[in-house]
């Protein structure tokens, strides 16, 4: 390795992806032509995000599938993007996790080179460009659809952005979900959502949404009580990204099931 120095006219600035191109480090899987069979690679499924009074809650199940098989039971789909934002992924697991890694590096790289943190809008746009660059692969069946949420320090509020495979990004005013169980998760949140939820209410609603999605969608994993694997939940507020403790998530699932039983439903 040599010291990466560039002439002033060819300097990539704070852009890490641009730097990788100039250094000819391959990032991402090259497009091959043809369509990938979905039984050959791993898929991540349901992730949700919703706003509450102090910020946003993000949650994701843990299941990865290869066709009809379960490929992994404890996959991480919710990641801190930086101190004040989180990114969750659904779609082809390999490129999705790689995109998160590149995104995290990109944000930190910008912050270190420039000495200031990107605005939340700027971060959302950066992710948009990465999804867009991935479009050729999405056309071959390897789509990655992230969900981005963070705390906007200049507005003092949580914000959520959804994406489509073409890199379009759309701000959501309340909540959204993506992935194969996204529709069921979204409906569940819709029924329980109101503006100004407390943190505990929002976390509970997210958990309920994943529970219902897992109930209806075979590719979404529910709480695995036998192995002790639970969906990952995180909040982003003025004090930054915080993971919700596994014990709290486990307890919320237990009380959800308990409540269902007491009401006379099958859990």
């Amino acid at each position, binding site marked *: *390795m040599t*010291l990466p*120095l560039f002439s002033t006219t060819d300097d990539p600035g704070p852009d890490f992806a641009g730097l990788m191109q100039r250094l000819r*480090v391959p990032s991402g899987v090259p497009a091959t032509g043809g369509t990938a069979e979905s039984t050959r690679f791993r898929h991540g499924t349901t992730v949700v995000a919703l706003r509450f009074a102090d910020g946003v809650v993000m949650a994701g199940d843990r299941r990865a599938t290869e066709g009809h098989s379960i490929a992994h039971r404890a996959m991480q789909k919710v990641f801190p993007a930086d101190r004040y934002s989180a990114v969750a992924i659904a779609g082809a697991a390999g490129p999705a996790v790689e995109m998160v890694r590149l995104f995290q590096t990109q944000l930190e*790289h910008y912050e270190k*080179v420039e000495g200031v943190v990107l605005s939340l809008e700027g971060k959302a746009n950066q992710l948009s460009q990465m999804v867009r660059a991935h479009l050729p692969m999405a056309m071959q069946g390897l789509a990655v659809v992230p969900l981005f949420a963070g705390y906007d320090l200049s507005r003092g509020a949580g914000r959520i952005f959804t994406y489509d495979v073409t890199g379009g990004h759309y701000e959501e005013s309340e909540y959204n979900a993506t992935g194969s169980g996204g529709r069921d998760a979204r409906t569940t949140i819709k029924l329980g959502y109101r503006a100004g939820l407390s943190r505990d209410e929002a976390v509970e609603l997210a958990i309920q949404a994943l529970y219902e999605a897992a109930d209806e969608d075979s590719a979404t994993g529910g709480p695995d009580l036998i192995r002790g694997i639970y969906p990952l939940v995180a909040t982003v507020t003025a004090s930054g990204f915080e993971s919700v403790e596994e014990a709290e998530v486990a307890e919320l699932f237990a009380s959800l099931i308990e409540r269902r039983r007491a009401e006379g439903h099958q859990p």
Partner: protein
Amino acid sequence: MSMPYYVAPEQVMKDRAEYAQKGIARGRSLVAIVHAEGIVIVADNPSHSLHKIGEIYDRIAFAGVGKYNEFDQLRVSGIRHADTKGYAYSREDVEARSLANLYAQYLGQVFTNEMKPLEVEILVAELGTELRPNQLYHIAYEGTITDESRFAVLGGETEGIAAVLDEQWQADWNLSAALKAAVGALAGDDRTLRGSQLEVAVLADGFGRRAFRRLDDDEIDGLLDT
């Protein structure tokens, strides 16, 4: 037709060294101290936006004195090196020693081959782990690299500052004690320096993955007054 004059290589090197030293001596000095709670880097720098100290990676910091545009370019290339390495391998594979070597190679190459040497002196500081000790790599304008385990002084007039610190340094200093010693040594006998005239950053555990943190004026004054 004019013939180029012959200049002895010794003279060329001497002239270049003198030129670089003069450039560096025009700026103010900078001190880094290893203490019981981590590493503190203190620069005599009244500017709040043109930094001399910067973050390179999780446990690595950079500091430079001399010509701003030249050491800032080195800082950015260090971040690029560290981020690409961490991305290609793993975060724990990024270490200060290899980066310090690259800097030394580059400065040495510019000093011997280019018309003008870089008028900078830089520092790469790494917060230790259980497996690696705290380390300060001091790299001079001509590529000479030295590693220090107690403190490093960069800038024009370093001898007086180094002598003071050499006498005072203690392994059990906490952040406040190390900062006071650094500020005292930088200020000398006839000045006092306060937060607004200083740029201070620390490498310390307990703030998550990224150990680098800047101290604001109030924090600096608070630590100086304890």
